[in-house]
């Protein structure tokens, strides 16, 4: 019992420690998102609720753009589905890192918490993922994400444009911090990342009409599939852990 409480406390502390840098990055990105939302006529409260519930950068950009364009509800549903479709794959990957005993609510809660970065944390966590850890990191990051959106809507015009631009690259810096360290240890991953960069660039040029969300899905399926055929995992390691 005591051991259990200690473990829970450790996981909460670890969640706070890893969630804080993600949340700080989120705040900056969500701030620029808030500026977009403000332009679409979204109120501060609406922006806060939308961010708590959606917590997805590309998906929310699409949402505010569609609200600004007076799109139909079914269109919004379709675009959100496509821009967030990568979460289907992440969710499937995470299903392999859940304890067998995890029930429906625990799985639903873990699913709700999926973002690119929280997923990154789950992947980096060795073995079965701790829901306490994941949810602590997620709650902190999600609140900061929503706070960023709120501040962006309230005070969007205060920051100079070049500062907003600089803040908007923060999210990509975080992506790099997730994918580059494992690439240092594995040449296969390094090659795969370079191939992904090249294909993403090429496809963007060849088919500019293809949305970013669709491009992400298409390349994820094709390149991960090719990598799985050419370089299958060696032993019985779990979906997310490595070596």
């Amino acid at each position, binding site marked *: 019992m005591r051991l259990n409480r200690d473990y829970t406390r450790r996981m909460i502390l670890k969640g706070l420690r890893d969630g804080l840098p993600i949340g700080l990055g989120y705040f900056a990105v969500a701030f620029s998102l808030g500026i977009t939302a403000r332009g679409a006529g979204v109120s501060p409260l*609406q922006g806060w609720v939308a961010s708590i519930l959606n917590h997805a950068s590309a998906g929310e950009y699409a949402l505010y753009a569609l609200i600004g364009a007076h799109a139909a509800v079914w269109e919004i549903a379709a675009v959100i*589905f496509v821009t967030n479709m990568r979460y289907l794959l992440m969710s499937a990957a995470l299903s392999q890192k859940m304890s067998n005993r995890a029930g429906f609510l625990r799985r639903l809660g873990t699913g709700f918490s999926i973002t690119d970065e929280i997923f990154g944390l789950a992947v980096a966590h060795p073995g079965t993922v701790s829901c306490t850890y994941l949810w602590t990191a997620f709650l902190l990051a999600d609140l900061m994400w929503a706070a960023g959106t709120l501040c962006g809507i309230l005070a969007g015009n205060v920051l100079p444009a070049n500062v907003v631009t600089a803040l908007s*690259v923060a999210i990509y810096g975080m992506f790099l911090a997730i994918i580059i360290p494992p690439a240092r240890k594995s040449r296969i991953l390094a090659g795969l990342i370079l191939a992904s960069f090249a294909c993403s660039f090429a496809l963007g040029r060849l088919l500019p009409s293809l949305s970013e969300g669709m491009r992400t899905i298409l390349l994820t399926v094709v390149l991960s599939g090719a990598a799985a055929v050419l370089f299958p995992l060696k032993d019985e390691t779990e979906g997310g852990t490595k070596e």
Partner: protein
Amino acid sequence: MSSGEIWIAILVAAGVSLLVRALPLTLIRRPIKSRFIRSFLFYVPYVTLAVMTFPAMIDAAAHPGAGIAALAAGTVAAWFGAGLFPVALITCAVEFLTGLIRF
């Protein structure tokens, strides 16, 4: 859009997002045996994040030079083990400074 319509749009988006995120997790209940699918799922996050980073990062910057500089700086910092927040900070700072340079 009216305020009511915006609320509906937000709730529909939230419902679809939750569905996409939670469906596989609630449906796939046992370890996947297939080596192909396990390998596929292992590679997914790297490809997804890489595709979303490039060239979007270059387009988000003030000009392509600033984007490339920020990408390079972030990659080097991450390579040498800097965490999420330091890397994000470095990319922002490099974008800001190189963004000031006009050609």
